[in-house]
């Protein structure tokens, strides 16, 4: 299987704190990769460094064999990556539809002339983009909310909108940071179906999660971090039986 993303000796230090230390992972095409670990293990930091939000203290990141260490976020995202956030980051004062349209930012290329001399709503590319976004909203059951202000949505819909916006850019890789936070079991099951569905369409998904049922249920492979280091890697069955993983979550047994 093709390696879409690869990290080498990836490390991120904040002063004396080693948030990531010598992490080597790979993200393979069409897989669902789970990333788990106790709080503070460095999972979100990993996302942040891979996507260019943090510059690594040491190490390298590769996309399709090309090194992207040190690139800015918007440049990394241009290579086909999209992400959601632990604490939802929507454009609160913009409409639901516009939130998703921003996700298509890199796909829409109107000329300056078209913007200034024709009503932008009538431009060909703009109409196509809006249709596509409405399609996405429909997929998530949000089409009736298209013109509501995103900040007013209930929590569950906000999470969906964030994923819709991420998908609008037609990414090759989707990074989900604790997508089930705050969800009840029904919503979580819906989410699992959703992730499974988009993965079947060819999208590579990486999921940070604390919900073990979700992770074990959908992941093809799992990576476990603790104290900034990778301590285990493998399929769900292997991980569940791994002693170091159990120790990380439950603490060492007293002798």
């Amino acid at each position, binding site marked *: 299987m093709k390696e879409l993303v690869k990290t080498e000796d990836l490390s991120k230090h*904040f*002063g004396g704190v080693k948030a990531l230390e010598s992490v080597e992972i790979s993200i393979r095409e069409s897989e669902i990769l789970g990333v788990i670990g106790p709080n503070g293990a460095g999972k*979100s930091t990993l996302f*942040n460094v891979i996507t260019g*939000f943090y510059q690594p203290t040491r190490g390298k990141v590769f996309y399709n064999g090309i090194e992207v260490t040190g690139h800015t976020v918007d440049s990394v995202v241009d290579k086909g990556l999209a992400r959601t*956030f*632990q*604490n939802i*980051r929507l454009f609160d004062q913009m409409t639901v539809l516009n939130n998703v349209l921003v996700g298509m930012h890199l796909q829409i290329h109107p000329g300056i002339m078209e913007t200034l001399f024709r009503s932008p709503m009538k431009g060909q590319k703009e109409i196509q983009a809006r249709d596509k976004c409405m399609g996405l909203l429909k997929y998530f059951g949000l089409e009736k909310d298209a013109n509501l202000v995103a900040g007013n949505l209930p929590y569950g819909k906000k999470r969906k909108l964030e994923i819709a916006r991420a998908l609008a850019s037609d990414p090759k890789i989707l990074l989900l940071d604790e997508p089930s936070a705050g969800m009840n079991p029904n919503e979580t099951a819906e989410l699992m179906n959703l992730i499974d569905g988009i993965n079947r369409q060819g999208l590579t998904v990486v999921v940070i999660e604390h919900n073990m049922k979700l992770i074990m249920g959908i992941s093809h492979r799992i990576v476990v971090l603790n104290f900034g280091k990778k301590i285990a890697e493998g399929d769900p069955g292997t991980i569940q039986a791994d002693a170091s993983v159990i120790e990380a979550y439950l603490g060492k047994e007293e002798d």
Partner: protein
Amino acid sequence: MESGTNMFFQHLINGLSIGSIYALIAMGYNMVYGILELLNFAHGDVYAVGCFAALGLLTMGVHPALAILAGIIVGFVINLFVEKLAYRPVRYSGRVTPTITAVGIAYIMRNAILKIWGPETFAFDIGVRGSNLQFGGIIIGTLQIYILLIAVTCMVGITLYLKKTKTGQGIIAISQSIPTAALMGVPVNRTISIVYGIGGALGVIGGVLFCIYYDSIFIGIGFALGTIKAWMASIIGGVGSLKGAVMGAIMLGLMESMVSGYVSTLYKDAIVWLLLIAFVLIKPQGLFPAQVAEKI
């Protein structure tokens, strides 16, 4: 050349004096900025009210020490009121809204002063004339020494207050994370009020020292000579740390003194601003910024 070095040291001394005054004003400003990260646009105009209150009492014949103390209390109390009535309701409403509110308060205070006293410059006479000491060819005023002493005392006092008292520790907690501090039992609203109050009090002290130094007081001591200087100091020294505020203020004082002495007094403000704009390019966070990694 002897007189050349003398000139230099003279400018240095003057720069340190004015820098110390700026440090007091900047400290008060930075304490508020440190917890809420909001440009307190009204910082200068509010403490100016305290200074003018002192002026009012002075002209009525009140003993200077009492007048100044009253001014400090006025500065403290007005900030408490303003915080409760105008700032607290919009504390969590983004960045633009609270900043604009502060602008509004600034204009209200400024115009209140203008209506009562007018735009002229008044003498600020506390009845004591400082004397001058001479060292070689350099003149140091006793006033300048007092200013330095008062500024240092305040700095030390504030630092101790923050480290040793419960409220002080609460202030530090709030400056790192308001929700966490609240969960730990810090009385957030009361503490923030106190910070604004202290900021105002420090500002009045700095403002009064300024007026005594130049034996004059006018409306500009608030915004132009206070708020703006505090901003300039935080551009140089970085925001979020008291050390940065103080260092930035002193450097600002020195910069102004040098530019004024060696280049031009006419263009002094413009040149200093241009230097600051250049500074922002090279060191956008200032020299001593508080170290915070953004978490997403």
